[in-house]
């Protein structure tokens, strides 16, 4: 593409905007871009790996090996955070299978959830999850979908104090119960919060993302492609010419760039069954990220398609 004064100016503005972000923008050789977890300043790659639906393959040996292949590509590309839940069917044992097959990569940042309406069953479920993963302890434990959140949060805080988990968080998805989530973010000493945010679902921009920034809470973004619906919808649509200014080679990268350009976002966790998509996702933050004007343009363009 020919560099015009207009494109040069836009790229410069984008670069200037991104310079304000708390990230290691220029990835080290072979390493993806990272952002700090506010409560510890530990840096983490800004693209993780979700397991909702994609890793629920049961005992199918072929598909289990495919998942292990996705995990191998993820770690090779410098990825760290893998997120799962007891709600996701066989995803937990499949993650455990992959970790075992890959020789338990030391880079792993394990993010799990507790999901049971019984407060008393929480510790047993967490222990079962840990066995499925085959890890000594989890890096992050989250209360899934705010279920029995008060009791489970107390359990997780106690675990953190005892050193059996490093970070505590809470999750929701698809814009549910943002009022309650906001209340918890204001009143509880959580390290992470997880919710849905993408190029068309932008409710989190109003209160949750600014609040996370203000309170120093790391943000995990789930459903970055609306569970694949957005990438499916855009599959046969040509990317706009201006996407090249951001170095986005696919719709997935462009949509991830939109998410990651928000300064309050710490990690996005797209789920996929393909190793090439994992590499593509991890490369999304390389190169310039969109500035405010470009973010609006991306969102408007995708909504219009």
């Amino acid at each position, binding site marked *: 593409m020919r560099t015009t004064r207009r494109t040069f100016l836009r790229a410069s503005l984008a670069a200037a905007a991104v310079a304000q972000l708390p990230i290691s923008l220029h990835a080290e050789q072979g390493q993806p871009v990272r952002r700090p977890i506010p409560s510890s300043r530990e840096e983490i790659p800004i693209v993780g790996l979700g397991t909702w639906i994609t890793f*629920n393959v*049961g*005992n*199918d040996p072929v598909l289990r090996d495919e998942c292990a292949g996705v995990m191998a590509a993820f770690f090779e590309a410098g990825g760290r955070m893998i997120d799962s839940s007891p*709600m996701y*069917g066989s995803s937990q044992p499949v993650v455990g299978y992959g970790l075992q097959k890959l020789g338990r990569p030391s880079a792993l940042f394990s993010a799990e959830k507790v999901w049971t309406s019984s407060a008393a069953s929480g510790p047993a479920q967490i222990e079962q999850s840990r066995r499925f993963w085959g890890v000594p302890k989890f890096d992050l434990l989250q209360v899934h979908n705010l*279920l029995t959140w008060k009791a489970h949060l107390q359990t997780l805080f106690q675990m953190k104090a005892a050193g059996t988990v490093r970070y505590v968080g809470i999750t929701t998805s698809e814009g549910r*119960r943002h009022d309650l989530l906001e209340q918890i973010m204001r009143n509880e000493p959580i390290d992470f919060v997880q919710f849905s945010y993408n190029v068309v679902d932008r409710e989190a921009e109003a209160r949750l993302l600014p609040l996370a920034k203000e309170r120093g809470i790391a943000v995990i973004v789930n459903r970055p492609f609306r569970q694949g619906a957005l990438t499916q919808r855009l599959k046969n649509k040509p990317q706009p010419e201006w996407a090249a200014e951001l170095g986005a080679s696919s719709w997935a990268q462009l949509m991830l760039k939109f998410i990651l350009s928000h300064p309050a976002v710490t990690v996005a966790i797209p789920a996929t069954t393909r190793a090439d998509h994992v590499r593509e996702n991890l490369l999304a933050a390389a190169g310039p990220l969109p500035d405010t004007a470009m973010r609006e343009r991306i969102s408007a363009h995708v909504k219009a398609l």
Partner: protein
Amino acid sequence: MSEWWTYRAENFLLFSPRVYWRMFELHNAALWPLHLLTLASGLIILLLVAWRPGLWTRWIALILAMLWIFVGWSFLWNRYSTINWAATYIAPAFFVEGVLLLVASLGDALAFDRRQPADGIGYLILGFALLGQPLLAPLQGRGWASSEVFGIAPDPTAMATLGVLLLARGRLLPWLLPVPVLWCLLSGMTLQTMGEPQAWAPYAALALAAAAWVWTIIRQRGSPPAA
């Protein structure tokens, strides 16, 4: 679950269509050639119903009872539950249906001795479950390996049972109908949520069964009382 009204059917779909159909491939491969036996038993049921010999009718319920328990254990409990935790709660319903059919068999509680106006629909559903349902996989490009066969997979087993119950009469019918009806509804919703065209099969079986029962009731009310 909080704010349950905000959830859509997609929120409860934990697996992809690819995983779902590969599950049938693995299940079929693990049980082959048992399919020949279950299919033969289905054809025997069809012949017994058509022949209507009073002495052998309890075998119909007995065969169905064994197959419901087998499908509940082998498919729902051992296989489907690995990708859908809800299957562990559904499997006992298959066991209950099996026990009810066993009771019907022991008590000789089902009879096939009367021609009824909606018999044709019963035979249609039973015939489709035995011979039509296994063809859906190859017809949709998935190959024979993932075919759903009566007595091995839940859909044809439930549909065939619906067909049999349409052809039957007896005091246990109201107890025997709910589980096959609910399974057809659940399976149809699952397939529909996955975007699978064959969701029409369990839905059509239900619609036909409902039409048949309504027709039978109307005809019975309209017929003159026995002298």
